[in-house]
């Protein structure tokens, strides 16, 4: 079920602004790939283009190819809704649906896709919450609103919601940036477990986090204000953090940038 992603000559635009230039990158299955780089370098934009969320913004445009096990998700015959069902996403700020209970939040993707079988939904809810290491904390209050959980629990609820639809790939956009260190640790442990089943791409501002959780790291940079962001290099995480191939990467990792 985990699939590989191949990004080929990707160029991303917001209206006339060229946000990201010529990104080519391979994301192997059952593997964690981290995107690091300074603010505004386009790493989140690239991530959002991997499940066709980039085009939701007005005027946003994509050139190039993103292949999921060889199939171009930007082919003209492909329904973006199907793409997003296959490639899930977790956002920077936890965003549970405020009108729904914890259980309904988890199974929202299935229920709104038309699954009505209560027994199946309950099974999926339990499996997903266990998968997100949240089951023991919420099993006695599944009917309470999701908004009443702590920030870290809400984020794990969002991860449970994303894995409930059994995607092939899971994209995470700075999933810990709004969380305290203990919740961050919980999510990082979860990522390590999730990679047994899912292909994961994570954007992070925290280099220690990239070093802790990822197998492969891609460093993005910006040559100047108003210039498009670029992929500087991608390699095994160990190599990037010990012996990067580019000087810009080394400068960024060691704090000598700007």
């Amino acid at each position: 079920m985990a699939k590989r992603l191949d990004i080929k000559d990707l160029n991303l635009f917001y209206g006339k602004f060229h946000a990201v230039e010529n990104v080519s990158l391979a994301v192997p299955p059952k593997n964690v790939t981290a995107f690091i780089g300074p603010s505004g370098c386009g790493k989140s934009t690239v991530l959002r283009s991997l499940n066709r969320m980039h085009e939701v913004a007005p005027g946003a445009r994509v050139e190039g190819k993103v292949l999921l096990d060889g199939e171009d998700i930007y082919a003209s015959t492909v329904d973006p809704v199907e793409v997003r069902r296959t490639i899930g996403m977790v956002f920077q700020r936890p965003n549970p649906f405020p009108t729904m209970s914890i259980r309904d939040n988890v199974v929202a993707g299935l229920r709104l896709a038309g699954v009505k079988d209560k027994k199946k939904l309950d099974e999926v809810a339990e499996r997903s919450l266990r998968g997100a290491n949240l089951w023991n904390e919420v099993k006695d209050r599944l009917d309470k609103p999701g908004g009443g959980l702590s920030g870290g629990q809400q984020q794990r609820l969002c991860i449970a919601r994303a894995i409930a639809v059994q995607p092939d790939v899971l994209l995470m956009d700075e999933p810990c940036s709004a969380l305290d260190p203990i919740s961050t640790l919980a999510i990082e442990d979860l990522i390590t477990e999730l990679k047994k089943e899912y292909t994961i791409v994570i954007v992070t501002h925290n280099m220690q986090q990239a070093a802790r959780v990822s197998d492969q790291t891609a460093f993005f940079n910006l040559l100047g204000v108003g210039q498009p962001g670029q992929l500087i290099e991608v390699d095994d995480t160990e190599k990037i953090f010990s012996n990067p191939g580019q000087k810009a990467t080394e400068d960024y990792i060691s704090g000598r940038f700007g």
Partner: protein
Amino acid sequence: MSTNLADPTRLATPPTFQAVSLSRRIKNGFATALVWGAFLIAIIPLVWVLYTVVQRGFPVILDGDWWQKSLSGLLARQQGGGAYHAIYGTLVQGLVCGVISVPIGIMIAIYLVEYGGRSKLAKATTFMVDILTGVPSIVAALFIYTVWITYAGMGRSAFAVSIALVLLMVPVVVRTTEEMLKIVPDELREASYALGIPKWKTIVKIVIPTALSGILTGIMLALARVMGETAPVLVLAAYAPFINYNLFSGPMASLPLMMVNERNNPTQAGFERLWGAAITLVLIITLFNLLATVISRVLAPKTK
């Protein structure tokens, strides 16, 4: 140094902090007086109106007949009877107006917020809604009179009143719904898209439920407003002292129309009916406002 340690209240240097200066205290007193003055000026007429309405109308509506009987067969000076015919008219005209306005208003708002963006059609629609908001009710009434009665050849009826009220209610519904949809965070829409939920289903199942309490509150307030409108009923429906259940033909009473009518009745019975109708209208509108509060409490997204 040692003296400072022994007596921490004694300062080694001149104090950094002083008492509030006289000029600031004067300004503060002046501003406080202004705010209180404005509050009193606003509250006195309100209390006065309420007092007058309650004092004159309350004894009238205590009679059970008031809520159950019409004025059918009664002479102007004869006491007794009730306002059932007018209450029925006000409620049913408001309800029909609501049934037509709410779907139109909500769909316009959904278009403006979710689909229109900065397109020309969206801008034109917003402009039209703005203009419609400012149309006086008498103009709406005369417009419907021209189109519905003069050109289309229909008679004066309760339904004509309802469609004139639609013109007044739609812009209010559009405005409140638009504001409520706008405050639904985009993150929720994105979370829904990311689960592979199509846009229309995201709007119906995620965005609208999140904004529902605000939308319904707006609808209730708009309904309360149009039910008190007098110009459309004056122009588009003739008064009837009896009960008329037919929306599409014949005269039908409503509370504002009953009040206008009884104002021309110089007897004690007329005085009682006038103030009875007034307090009934105030009560109905208050009820709708309370209902709006209850709905928004019950439906608001919870965290516990």
